[in-house]
């Protein structure tokens, strides 16, 4: 969800927050308009209508501003502010309703702040309007800090929109056996993204900056198993845990064979990761051996694996099929040396904030 830099020209009667869905992009309008005219519906949600319809609220924006049909915005008239909640062409539509977190991971890409955006009614109205079968992200901060409200929101939305699926990133510190029945009814519509950084409790705890986190995590995993959860277990590759990758694979196969898959993720060079970056970043393009050993172990033990944020030319060829093309809008950057590369269409690309001077040593088509 991002803040939109637009001028709101609000007509009378609009003071409480509203949900806007931009619709009818072409109907009755050949030229791209520079004004969105929206019409009010009884339940406070407002549906956009380009160039026609009764005016309730109008929003002025620069014609250069790139908008799409089907976008969903949240508008806060009192603060003269609008946020983009959903964009159809984006694959990473994510709701962030708190920036607080009880962990402080050394590589956190979105360092916690003491800020909340707890507009539950508004989110409910907005989620209802998502297109059929949308895969929608919920992240933070730690979303489970608002567990009761989050569960209530999910329950309400899923009951009327069972086609939606949610990808919820959580540190799995806040599940208890009391949650099992609630989780059981929600879990068909949720893929939980849960971080595990080592099989050594002290090292995991140090990476996430919280004592006892590893033990909490394992307790939560039992609860999630008992409620039939689908789990994406996530490990960010770091110098601090590269020696544990094979252990993690064996641990998954031994103790959590029921998870959906293991995602090994290369470091995102932003947020806390930028502090002493070179002490954290493990350049697998220079030495793939430990990663390879873990990927082989995963195949031997039957653990399904995905590689995130691993550019194609940095991955040994037999393992490249595990590397997913990035789905996030901010990971589609390519470098000058990428021009003319045939692998580009399959490549994860680079983070928007990738800095080559402290990045991978061995890049380019000669490593393909």
């Amino acid at each position, binding site marked *: 969800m991002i803040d939109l830099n637009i001028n709101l020209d609000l007509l009378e009667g609009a003071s409480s927050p509203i949900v806007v869905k931009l619709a009818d992009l072409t109907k009755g309008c050949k030229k791209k308009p520079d004004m969105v005219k929206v019409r009010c519906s009884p339940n406070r949600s407002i549906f956009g209508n380009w160039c026609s319809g009764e005016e309730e609220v109008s929003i002025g924006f620069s014609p250069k501003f790139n908008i799409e049909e089907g976008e969903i915005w949240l508008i806060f008239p009192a603060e003269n502010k609008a946020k983009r909640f959903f964009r159809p062409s984006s694959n990473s539509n994510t709701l962030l309703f708190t920036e607080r977190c009880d962990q402080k991971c050394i590589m956190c890409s979105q360092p916690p702040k003491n800020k909340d955006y707890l507009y539950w009614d508004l989110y409910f109205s907005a989620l209802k309007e998502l297109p059929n079968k949308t895969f929608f992200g919920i992240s933070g901060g730690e979303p489970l800090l608002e567990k009761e409200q989050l569960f209530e929101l999910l329950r309400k939305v899923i009951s009327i929109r069972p086609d939606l699926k949610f990808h919820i990133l959580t540190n799995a510190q806040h599940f208890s*056996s009391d949650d099992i029945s609630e989780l059981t009814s929600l879990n068909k519509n949720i893929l939980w993204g849960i971080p595990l950084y080592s099989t050594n409790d002290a090292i995991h705890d140090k990476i996430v900056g919280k004592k006892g986190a590893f033990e909490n995590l*394992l307790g939560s*995993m*039992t609860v999630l*198993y*008992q409620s039939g959860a689908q789990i994406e277990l996530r490990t960010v590759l770091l110098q601090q845990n590269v020696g544990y990758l*094979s*252990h993690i*694979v*064996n641990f998954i*196969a*031994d*103790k*959590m*064979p*029921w998870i959906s898959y293991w995602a090994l993720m290369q470091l995102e060079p932003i947020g806390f990761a930028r502090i002493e970056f070179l002490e954290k970043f493990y350049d697998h393009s220079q030495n793939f051996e430990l990663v*390879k*050993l873990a990927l*082989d*172990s*995963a*195949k*031997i*033990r*039957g653990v399904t694996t995905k590689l995130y944020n691993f550019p194609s030319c940095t991955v040994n060829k*037999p393992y490249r099929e595990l590397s997913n093309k990035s789905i996030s809008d901010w990971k589609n950057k390519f470098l000058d040396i990428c021009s003319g590369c045939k692998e580009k269409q399959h490549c994860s690309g680079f983070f928007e904030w990738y800095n080559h001077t402290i990045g991978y040593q061995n890049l380019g088509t000669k490593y393909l």
Partner: protein
Amino acid sequence: MTNDAGNFFFGSSEIVQRLKENSIEPFFERFLFKKNFAFNNKNSLEYSSYAFNSALRRLTPNKLKYILVIPTLRCDLSCTYCQVSRASIKAKSFDWCDETVDRFIDFVNEYADTELKIEFQGGEPTLRLDLIKKIVDEVSKIRPSSTFIICTNLQNYSKELKNILHNKNVQISTSLDGSKKLHTQNRTKKMTSTEKFFTNLREVIKDIGHHRVSALPTISDFDQIMDVIKTYHSMGLNEVFLRPVNYQGFARKKHKESKNDVEKWIKAYCKAIDYIIEHNETEDQKIIETNLAIHLRRIFHPGQNGYVDLRSPNPVAQDYLVINYDGSFYPTDEARMLTRIGLIDLRIGSIKDGMDLEKINSLNQAQDNKNDKACKNCALQPFCGVDIIDKISRYQTVDYPTEKTYFCQFHMAVFTKIFDLFSKGDIRFLKTASLHLGGTYALSPALAGFNCD
């Protein structure tokens, strides 16, 4: 020691004694937790993992995923061990009729899974490429991710066959018995026919690539097993499925010795595996043996329950079905062979009249090693399988004691060999096991830590 989840470890008999006496040391107790043999309560990862894998090992797909189709029983060869007692090339009414094809497409539409595999067997299915083409085209429309395997003797590599192979979802499987001499002796009878086959095999590999061509030997002379491996290696085929003559069809008369030769076969097979282990250590082009891969996967990949020759329970007509040249249904390829020679009627319905549920249910009662007296006390039970069709075939009754069967003795021997090599920590074997399970010939931390002392 094993458990239902397929967790296992090796220990001395002293360890067993201590377990009985409940006098185990803290170190060993930790080991038992690590291997999911011990848990504090049901709300633990140990118990979750144990419960999940125990259930997963007994889970079979509930939709048709594999259909073996016999468009014709006619064949242009007459192999000594022909298991189906093929019909001669000019025989009449041994082919699918048009009505059967139409009914088959409807059947697929109604019952088949999205990930469907259709294998064309025979006879020689390429005698009816028109039927194959129609089935491939029509099934691809209603199940776009279907794959097809044409099992052919490759005596003819026609333009029509090449055309069908333009579809990348179609693969070739053929029989290659070993050296040209052996292949001639068992299969073609004439060296000129064998030459033709070898030429066609090379050509089809060149056209569609190794990954879409597989070859299978049928081993009748066990002393020749190394020649078989060497022939495959020299043809650039890196996977070989070492299988003895199947005691069916013509083989019952012409290879009578195959009924009770299990010990001889085990000896030959184990020697071949030793050879492959040695070969893989010294040669760049590695060899994968399919049987070994299947057994290793049964140990390390719970839920690998798609292979009907080694799984339990092994429900018939659920995810796998054979449809004969006359449109009748059989639970396995062996079952149609047994019926053909008149030993027992294992027909379980037809494309016209549907499934014979009563017969299917009665067969399925025995298709589970949980209910077997011998298997109950066997440590290999979670990995092994059950096959009553083979039992009926060899011993004419499902009541024959399992421990005396060919099935039990062969699989027990393979599993025992594997576990023996693991317990010794045989480095070369560990690398070949890695290759078979994960595709990389190297030592892996995933294949360590099996010994408790």
